[in-house]
Every structure is written in C-alpha cells, then in structure tokens.
C-alpha cells in the first residue's frame, strides 16, 4: 500500500501499488484476505474506487465497528504494509465507456464506491455519455467523495444529486429524507430515455430503489444491482 486518504470519519481510501495487476473494469471488486498469527483467516470483498485509467488501484473502505476486517484496514494498516488480495472480480456489475448511454447511477452510503469508478471512467472517455447520479447519504459529512462528485458536475454530461437522510446543513436545497418516487421522477432519467441503471448500497436501500425504478416504468433488465451488508465488514 502506498497511501491512505481519509474520506470521511468512517471511510478511508487505500491507494495500492500492484505490480503485475492485469487492469480492471469499472464496477469490479477485489477480495482481501487477512490471516492472523494463529492461522485464522477472514475474507471480505471491497469495491474498486479507481477508474481503469487511474495510476493506482484505490479501495475505499467504510469501517464497521464490529467488523473483523474493515477496522484493521482502516485503522491499523499503514503505507508500506502488504495485503493479500485477489481480483479483479465480477463481470455483472460493470460498466464500460463503450456502452451506449445514458447512464443512471444510484448509490446508498458506501455503495458510491464502484459508481465512482464508473464516473471517473466516464469522464476519461473520448466521448462520454450523459450520466445522472443520485447519491443517498446520512449527512453531508458522511457523503464519500462529495467534493469530487460535485466537481464532476462541471462536465456538461454529468449531473449529481445528493439526498441526505438524517442531517442536513442549514439552507440545504437538496432532497431531505429517504429517496422516494417524487425524487426519482425529478432527478433520474425517465424510462423513455432507456438508461443503463446501476444501483449499489445496503440491501434494503437497493431493494427500495429498484422497486421505485420498476414502478416508474424502467425495465427490470435495465437495472443492475449490487447489495452489501454486515458480512462485508
């Protein structure tokens, strides 16, 4: 590992130097395995936050206080330490800039991580398709990559909307509370635009979002989902 970047109070990015890394596709993840001195092993999957075009592979990891792996990765690991990982992994929840648009990305919490890889991949493309992002976080301080995401709106092709579910700054003009049908109608691509949709987050968030999208009229096979939960700790 070459660097650690503090993203939020609970999330850190691990910047890795991987000799012989074969490259990855936006949306893929890696499995990290930790082995204790007594031989006990724990393995977890973490999404890749960097684009294929980036110089280093970045994993952004949210600490789960009762987790077995994430506290070590976010609190103990230091630059220069080595990690045992396998990947890149996954061929379903991936997006390539060569795919036709538009693109709709919907994230809950640290579900933004693989979608950030897709967005960085998108803006690195010669002719980016249009993308809309809907990101639900507890508060602005909990919104991972918020500065970068809002900075990406400088691209004509990218729109980013952040919904805050628990706390918001005074004068917050964005959505307050959980995502709902009115918000989906207001800020996401309508079904007639036939977007490719990627939804990532905790299981309950993903299922609520997918249900809203189908209710709105999107074809179920246009929606790709990735759920994570406590076993990801």
């Amino acid at each position: 590992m070459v660097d650690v970047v503090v993203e939020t109070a609970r999330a850190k990015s691990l910047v890795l130097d991987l000799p012989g890394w074969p490259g990855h596709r936006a949306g893929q993840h890696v499995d990290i395995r930790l082995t204790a001195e007594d031989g006990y092993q724990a393995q977890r999957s973490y999404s890749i936050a960097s684009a294929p075009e980036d110089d280093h592979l970045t994993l952004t990891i949210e600490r789960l206080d009762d987790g077995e792996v994430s506290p070590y990765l976010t609190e103990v690991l230091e630059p220069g330490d080595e990690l045992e990982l396998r990947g890149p992994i996954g061929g379903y929840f991936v997006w390539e800039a060569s795919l036709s648009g538009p693109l709709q990305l919907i994230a809950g919490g640290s579900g933004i991580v693989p979608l950030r890889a897709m967005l960085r991949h998108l803006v690195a493309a010669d002719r980016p398709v249009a993308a809309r992002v809907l990101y639900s976080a507890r508060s602005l301080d909990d919104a991972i990559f918020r500065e970068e995401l809002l900075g990406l709106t400088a691209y004509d092709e990218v729109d980013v909307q952040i919904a805050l579910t628990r706390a918001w700054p005074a004068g917050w003009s964005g959505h307050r509370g959980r995502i709902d049908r009115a918000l989906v109608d207001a800020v996401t691509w309508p079904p007639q635009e036939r977007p490719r949709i990627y939804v990532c987050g905790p299981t309950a968030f993903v299922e609520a979002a997918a249900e809203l999208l189908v209710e709105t009229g999107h074809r179920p096979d246009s929606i790709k989902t990735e759920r994570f939960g406590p076993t990801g700790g």
Partner: protein
Amino acid sequence: MDALDGNAIAGDLFAAFGHEMTAVVGTCTSCGATSAIAELRVYISGPGTVARCPDCTSVAMVLARGAARFSGYDLAGPGSAD
C-alpha cells in the same frame, strides 16, 4: 439477516470454476424465472453459503469449502446477462 446477492461470492465462484460466473444466466427449475448469478439472493454464514432464486426463493446453489453445487438452477439459460 439481510440477503446479499451473487456479486458477493464472485471471487469464490471464480476460484471454484476458474472463470467469472456472475454474469452467467440460469433458470430456476421451481418457478422458471431466469436470473444472472449476480441476481441470486445470497446468505453467507460460517459453514457455507446458500444462493436462492430472487423470485421464488428456492435454493439455487450451495457453496461450501471452496466447491459450488447447483441444485434447482439450470445454467443452460437463454444467454448471457449482458
């Protein structure tokens, strides 16, 4: 316990089969629904992992000790997920 989905076991499936499996589509032999392995509902516990059809929750696959066994999920599906 909340279910995860087949994306969560992509690495173990890769290790068991030697190639990427999550985009492979199969058909539930109980209800006939087709879904990519990534779309299966996955329950991970200590000894093993159970993947179920997202439509009818019938068992589609059991993954234990590095080996995967499909049951009730026919991999000769109509095509790839993409």
